[in-house]
Structure formats: C-alpha cells, structure tokens
C-alpha cells in the first residue's frame, strides 16, 4: 500500500481521531465513563446493521428497508412472546421474519433483476405496513421480564447490545475478508458480468447478501425490542439513512467493489460521536437534521474526491469518460 493510499484509507480514522479530540476538549462530560457507555449503546442499532449494509453497498446495491425490518422483527418477537410466553419462540419468529424480508428483497432484485433502490423503497413501505398489521397498529408490550436482560443486562461489564454489535462486526468482517462468499461479493460489485463468467454464482450470492441484511436487521430489531421492552411498529424510521451514512463515512464506495470492516466501524463511531455531542450540547432537534444530512453530504463528496477520477465501473470505458456522473 502506497503512502497516499494509506492516507486515503485512513482518512476516516483521522477524521474520527480529530473529532474525538475536539469533542473531549469542548464538550463537557464527553469523556465520562457514563457517556462513553451511552455512546456505545447509542450506536448499537446502526452498528449491528452497518456491517451487512457494507456487503450490500459493496455489491453496488442498496437496501432502504432495514428500518422497517427492525420494526417488524421487534413486533413479531413481542407478539409471539405475548402469545406463547416463550422467549425462544419469539426470538425465532423475529429472526425468521427479518430473514424472509431480506430473502424477498433478494429474490426480486437478483432473480427478477429489478433496481434495488426502488424494490427496497417499496418493501420499506410494505414491511412497515406488516409491522402495523402484526401489532394491530400499536406497540406491543412484552410480558417477559427475562427478555429485557438482552437489552439492559451486561457481560464482563459490557452491555449485551454492544456484544451483539461487536459480533456483527467480527462475523461480517471475517466474511468479507476470509470467505469465498465475501470475496465474491466484492467481485460482483466490481464487475458482475466478469464474476458470472468466472463461475461466481451471482444470483445466489446476491440473494444471500440481502437475506443476511434482513437477518442482521432482525437481530438489531430484537435487541432494540428488549431495550425498549416492547415491539414498536413505528420505530427506526429513517434508520437506513444513518446506516448508509455510516458506511459511506467509513469509506465503502457507492460504486461497489470496495469495503473494509474497519472503515465501517470508524464510520459508525463518527456518526455516534457526532450525534452524542449534539445531544450533550443540547443542540435543538432541528439543527440535528441539518447536521445529520450535512455529515452524509460531506462523506459522499469526500468519497468522490478520494476516488479522484475513478468512475463507477459499470460504465464501459471508465478512463475515457471524464465528464460522467456516477450512479449507484
């Protein structure tokens, strides 16, 4: 890796470091133990899903339905626990529901070859509707206090939701770096036709990635339900935005083919630290919209500049089209 590439790569890390220094200097209470734990907890939802979103983006696709899936999984879990009294069955139902949503996305996108942006925009609505239907439109109380431990309990002093997020980072970090499946994802993102002709089972990989994304969203949804002790059909609206922002901040390219789990972790932390600081500083919610949107904008422009002239690879002649716009 050349020095300039190293710099490119570590751009997000530097940003995070600078941010952390600034925050600890200027934001009261930022470095407190209480706050750091709160910060970690606050990114668990985004973090747990970001690792699989990284896979989706690396494949040059996008999934907007994750927020709804989080809601559906939480509601399913709550309803089933309520009906059966069994935490295990509830969790299973939540996991199955989320995975099925992902599978559905994957089959339509990869099988019918339809644009993932629109498909997941549609399933975002539909799954939200399902969440409302399953819950009867209201949030569902979970009558099993044992289940709450998943949200508020801890192990070795670290809360369970944080463990779950770390697990997601580790597992999908390994997947992308150490498995044939993971490398195939990057190959598909880089050049799907070349991958297909080299024997990569493109459709199967695509479906799998979306199914995993559904599964991760389900896990996140179940943990969230445990944290908020109920299944909320209207939770996590706009979550997809935060997750995609975190990935883009972490250097996942929207033109596919590039992904590092380290970058994603940094991206998640940047998002979390920024949001945390806004909270600590008591910045009114309205400004927070501006800041959230602004962070994403800066990230994507930086992504663009970092790539320099590099254009998305689905254009036929990358080098010869300097005035092209990049499309995901």
């Amino acid at each position, binding site marked *: 890796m050349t020095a300039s590439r190293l710099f490119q790569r570590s751009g997000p890390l530097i940003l995070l470091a600078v941010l952390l220094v600034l925050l600890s200097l200027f934001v009261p209470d930022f470095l407190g133990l209480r706050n750091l734990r709160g910060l970690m907890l606050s990114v668990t939802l985004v973090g747990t899903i970001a690792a699989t979103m990284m896979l989706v983006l690396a494949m040059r696709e996008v999934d907007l339905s994750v927020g709804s899936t989080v809601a559906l999984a939480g509601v399913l879990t709550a309803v089933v626990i309520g009906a059966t009294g069994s935490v295990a069955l509830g969790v299973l139902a939540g996991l199955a529901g989320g995975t099925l949503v992902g599978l559905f996305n994957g089959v339509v996108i990869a099988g019918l070859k339809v644009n993932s942006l629109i498909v997941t925009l549609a399933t975002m609505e539909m799954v939200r509707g399902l969440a409302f239907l399953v819950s009867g439109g209201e949030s569902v109380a979970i009558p099993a206090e044992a289940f709450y431990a998943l949200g508020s309990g801890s192990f070795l002093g670290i809360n369970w939701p944080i463990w779950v997020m770390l697990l997601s980072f580790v597992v999908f970090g390994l997947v992308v770096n150490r498995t044939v499946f993971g490398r195939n994802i990057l190959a598909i993102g880089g050049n799907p036709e070349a991958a297909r*002709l080299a024997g990569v089972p493109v459709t199967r990989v695509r479906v799998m990635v979306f199914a995993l994304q559904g599964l991760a969203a389900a896990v996140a949804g179940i943990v969230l339900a445990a944290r908020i002790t109920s299944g909320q059909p209207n939770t996590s609206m706009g979550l997809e935005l935060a997750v995609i922002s975190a990935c883009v901040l972490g250097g996942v390219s929207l033109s596919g083919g590039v992904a590092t789990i380290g970058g994603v972790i940094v991206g998640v932390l940047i998002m979390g630290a920024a949001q945390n600081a806004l909270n600590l500083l008591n910045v009114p919610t309205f400004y927070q919209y501006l800041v959230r949107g602004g962070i994403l904008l800066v990230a994507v422009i930086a992504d663009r500049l970092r790539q320099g002239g590099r254009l998305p690879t689905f254009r036929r*002649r990358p080098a*010869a089209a300097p005035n092209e716009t990049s499309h995901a």
Partner: protein
Amino acid sequence: MGGRRPASAAADADQRHGHHPRHLSRPAGPGSGGVTALLEYAGVGKVFPGVVALDGVSFTVAGGEIRALIGENGAGKSTLLKILSGQYQPDSGTLLVDGVARRFAAPRDSRDAGIAIIHQELQLAPDLSVAENLMLGALPGRFGLVDRRALRRQALAVLERLGEPIDPDSRLGDLPIGRRQMVEIGRALLRDARVIAFDEPTSSLSARETTRLMAIIRQLRAEGRAIIYVSHRMEEVFALADSATVLRDGRHVFDAAPVGPDDEGRLLSAMAGRTIADIYDWRARASGDMAIALDAITGPGVTAPVTLSVARGEILGFFGLVGAGRSELFRLVFGAVPPASGAVAVGGAPLRPGDPRAAIAAGLALCPEDRKEEGIVPLASVRENVALAWRNRAGATPLLQDRAEKAASTDRIAQMRVKTASPEVAISTLSGGNQQKAIIARWLMADARVLLLDEPTRGIDVGARQEIYAHMYRFAEAGGAILFASSDMPEVLGVADRIVVMREGAISGIVARGDATPERLLRLALPDADAAAPHRMSA
C-alpha cells in the same frame, strides 16, 4: 497498451526510423495544391498517469486530402482525434485549424470550429429518433422549441445522401448496428464540417455499407474537406487515402504520400517497430480423443444449427466478419447465454445448458472478447482476478485458502509471464496484453481443459501476441483443446489447425490448415459470396 513510460521509451528504439518522420514525398492530395493546411498538429503531446499517449506528434491535413492514420492498438490514434474533438486537451504542442492555433475546452468548441468526429465507440442516444440523433447537440429550433419540420427535412436529405432507407422517425435503438454507424456518419455530414475524422468507421459495417461509405468520403474530399481516416484495414487505406501517417507508442514515426499497396511492408514495420518475422511459429501437433462436441447449437446470434467437434490437442480457429456470430457461439457453448436448441458434450458427458458454472466444472473456460466488460474485476488485485474461478470451482471450501491460493496463483502468473509489479496490485493498472494473460492464467489455475478464446489478441501488441500464441501451443500440446475466434485473418491462418468460417450466424465452411488461403476464407466469410462451399461437418 498502457504501462509505457517516458524513460523506457527510448530503450527499445532498435529499428526505429528516427525521431523525425521520414517523408517519402510531400503530401499532395488532389485539389490541395500544397497551400496552407486546413488542419495541423504541431508537436502535440499528451500524458496520462503512467502513460505517454502522444509524444510530439506533427502532421498536416490539407483541404481535399484524405490522410490515413495508422498504428497498432494503443499507438495514440484515438487520443489524437479526442484532442481534435475537445475531449482531451493536449499537454504540449498546438493544434492549428486554418493556420490558427486552437484549444478546444469542450466538444462544443470543436464542433463550432467546423470539426466533426466519427468516434470509435458509437455515440448515440438510443431512445431518441434517428432524426434527433442526426442533429443531437444542434437540434433546429426557435425559442427553444424543436422545429420538427426542419428536423425531418434535414434528416431525410442526409439519409438520402448516405443511401440509407431509414425512417427518420424510428427509434435509434431499434436499428441494427451497421445502420447506427451510418447515422453517426450522417451526423458529421449534416454539420457540414470542414474537417472530418473517422475513427475505425467500418468496424461494424457490411461490405455494401463500406463501399457506400468510401464513395461518400471520396465525395467529401472532392468538396475540399480535410479528412482523417483511422483504420486497421490496409485495403481500405490503400483504396482511399492520399497519404498516411504512422504512429507508434505515441510517436509519429513515418509518413507516406501517396500511399499504395507497395508501401505495406514499410508501413507495417514502422507500426511494429521491427520487421515482423514469423510470429506464429506453428508446429504440427498430435491430436487425441474428442474434447468437446457441439450438437446442433442455435441461439441468439447463431441462426443455423452448429455441429462440431474438437479433439484434444487441437486448435480450432473461427474466422468471420464482424457480427458473424462467433462470439455468440462461444457464449452459447459456455452457457453464458442459454441456447435455443442443441447440446454440448465435454469428454462425452452432456453439459447443463445455460450454466457457466456447470461449464467450468466440466473444464470449459471462456476468455471473453470484451475484456473490460466481461473479463476483469478492475479494482481487485491481479491475484484475486487470477484466483476467481479457482475459488468458485466445484467442491471448494467456503473459507479462503490463502496459502494454497497464493502459491497456485503466483505459479500461474509466472507461467503466463504476466508483467506486474506485484500480484497484489489492482489488475486495472496492467496493460491490456497483461490483463489478457492474467485471464488465461485464471483458467489455467482452474484447470481448464477446453479454452474458448474470443479475440484473444485484440488490443495487444506484437510481442505479447507472440507469447499468447506460444501459450496456446503449449496448452494444446498438454492435451487441451482450444477454440479461438479472431477477425485477424493472418492470425487465424497462422495459428489454427483447422478453420471454421462463419457468416451471418451460420457456419459457411470448415477448412483444413493446408487448404486455407486468404481468398478462400474471405469468400466463405463474405455475405455476397455465391461460391460458398456447401458446409460439411467434420467428424
């Protein structure tokens, strides 16, 4: 191709005709009379990261002159034209139009200066009508509204001039490729440009269309326009051009005016930088039992059933004109596209149709024609690219086997003599020839026994070509079978043991190496050849 460096450029200058172009005689195209050139390149240079695309190129084109621009792939021809069209700006030197130095910041500026380019890649808007495409960028209108009547009138006029019976209102994307090319040419005519440059205009035209185009270009010359004509086809150059400029490695190495078939040898050696010895070096090989059999295959692009079999140790060449159906046949055999009918058997076992993974499992490998679109994963490393098929072979473990993979891929990379700084750099940094060799290495690593090579030497310089041929022979000697498609007749004649000629989606003949002559192949390949021998199937 890429990878040329300024420093090393001088080192290979053994046979070069000197830095200054040698003029056989003054350019004196009919009608020019040797007055101020309409167009002049004066010491034009252009550098891309890591590549000197053009290095001080100077030449002129007078009104009423057709100047052929020739050179190997990557010599810099298209770059010269892109500077003329305002797509690129030169790093040094100047471009003069009518004796005035011009610098085009954008394609519009070039257009406004009376210049039209017919690009190597078709540059059309598929969803607009033919008429709109003809006038794209300069649609006639008043107050921003399109003047439909004027549009139609002008379109009809130019289509008539082209001799193309195309409805100006039809959607461009619905036209066959040759017609689209004619629309692109029509656009240049419509602009009434004084300087017109054609970048390989005939690569997708039929013989009839080519003849028609030649007549149009001669007429443009008679009207006093300056014309640059880029082509790899020497026959066309000799038939049309008044003068020729040869580029090699971005340098202007040779000029000829007038230019005729007698100059061929000199032109070729100027292009290649050395006299071309026998780069094919074919030797007879023993052939074994049947490697692959095609049984009445049809599908998109292959209209008549194709039945063939290839033995182990055999190299079967496929010749044909553009669009003859060779690429499509290869894709059908490999399962990249499901065949409409027919079957493929490898080593006697039938292949699941339309499934590249099954084909790979049976030992098939496809090196596609379009390396960039279908071959490489550009951002991935050379190693990843080479290992891609191996990783996905049947029965591979889901976890990466780093050590085994590294060892095997390094071996194959060395074996194919892929020139790369390290196996870990992105494959897109390699020159085209080395990318091609890496793709072949991919299939060696995956243990392919039947290679389908589609235009394996397109875009590849002579040295690399020779190496690829050598590898093909070695592969065949080791018991592999090769089907290779090429539009380069000498290559087919030089490398193949047996030659299949295709025409319009069907086999028009199969010729043994000993019986193959250029005339015979051409007669079989040309659509209007009435003497096509009844196609006989080989055993």
